[in-house]
């Protein structure tokens, strides 16, 4: 099986790897690039734990082939904090204890970050619909939604 040379940009850095065409972007991120923040929950696009942005679009990286990332830019959870400063969503998730086992958290943070980019002032209903593709089996979602709403308020410089 011949491997394909992939040149891509991940979190702003140029990255190259060799991919078997059957390998998903998630496999490539975790096993070839060493970015293990994106998780594999289901591998079939149902759970959202592998959420990344591909050229600015929120996708499940388990439903993208590694070779499809060639020439594109990928943003993962590892690119969310800047230097030593956590993203407001990350801080609010800690403050609200919006995680228990933490397996779904990277995917939810990536998805919530995109939500607040396209809709800085979402209603609770909009937030829940946007995050419907991110499954969490611990929290019951309530603390997650509150953390996202609080982070949104902070980013709009309001007090929630």
């Amino acid at each position: 099986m011949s491997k394909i040379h992939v040149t891509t940009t991940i979190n702003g850095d140029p990255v190259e790897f060799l991919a078997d065409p059957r390998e998903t972007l998630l496999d490539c991120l975790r096993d070839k690039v060493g970015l293990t923040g994106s998780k594999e929950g289901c591998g079939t696009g149902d759970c959202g734990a592998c959420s990344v942005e591909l050229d600015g679009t929120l996708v499940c990286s388990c439903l993208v082939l590694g070779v499809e990332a060639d020439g594109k830019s990928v943003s993962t959870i590892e690119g969310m904090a800047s230097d030593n400063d956590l993203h407001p969503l990350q801080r609010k998730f800690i403050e609200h204890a919006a995680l228990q086992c933490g397996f779904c958290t990277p995917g939810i943070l990536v998805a919530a970050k995109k939500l607040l980019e396209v809709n800085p002032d979402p209603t609770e209903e909009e937030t829940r619909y946007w995050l419907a593709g991110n499954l969490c089996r611990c929290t019951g979602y309530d603390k997650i939604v509150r953390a996202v709403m609080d982070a949104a308020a902070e980013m709009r410089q309001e007090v929630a």
Partner: protein
Amino acid sequence: MRYHSPTSFTDAAGIAAGASGLTRFLAGGTDVLVQMRAGMVQPDDLIDLKKIPGVGDITRTDDGGWRIGVAVPGIALGANAGLKTDWPGVVEGMELVGSTQIQGRATLAGNLCNGSPAADSVPGLVAAGATVEITGPEGTRTLPVEELPAGPGKTHLAKGEMVSAILLPPRGQHGGDAYLRFIPRTEMDIAVVGCAVNLTLDGDTIKSARVALGAVAPTVILVPEAAEAIIGTTLDDAAIAKLESVAKSAAKPISDKRGTSEFRVEIAGVLAKRAARIAYARAKGEQA
């Protein structure tokens, strides 16, 4: 598995026609990659169509219709204000497919070619009178959307052929369309029954109509007798009653874990009348 990323549909057709084993085309990949992972489908040749120029574009055609590329994801349909104004029913059908993440990848062409009778985007396309442009080794042909699926997971595409664009007709004046589905939860589920209605008005009277039902037969079906039940009427109570009864007679569903045959027949009638009312209101320029 060999991965191909041709830069024209003609080249893609050539690769597919010359392939000896199992071939799959890759657009959004939200069905193909799941089938590969589950071991249901192990393609020998995977032909990625996303490197072909124009596949990500939504363009208005010279006649006032729309041409939608095979790699346009759901999220891009809703973001196109002109398309949403002309064909809200088509757009709302596609937007019901999967999560935000799936919307970032899944395509109309893929939803159609996957061949599911419950595909949410297909009844809207059928009701709209959409056609598909098909490119194959022999050249290009067009086909009404309702004639593409052959049964669950099957299409009438010949070896080497693929859908190369989705074509929507001109909306014209005083028209409206709508799609509704029934699922037992609020989001992220497969249609138990789906129904799309598209109509145009002359004053208050319905001048033309097309009604399509999903998940009540081996393919999405066009129901001409349901359209006839409302054409020439003002969608009064008698017309609604006729539409409901005709839609129920046209439904020939199976019973499965998501709904019994009897339930699906009942719901087909309910959705037909509700979708018709929304399409009618939209045709009158009212919010619905």
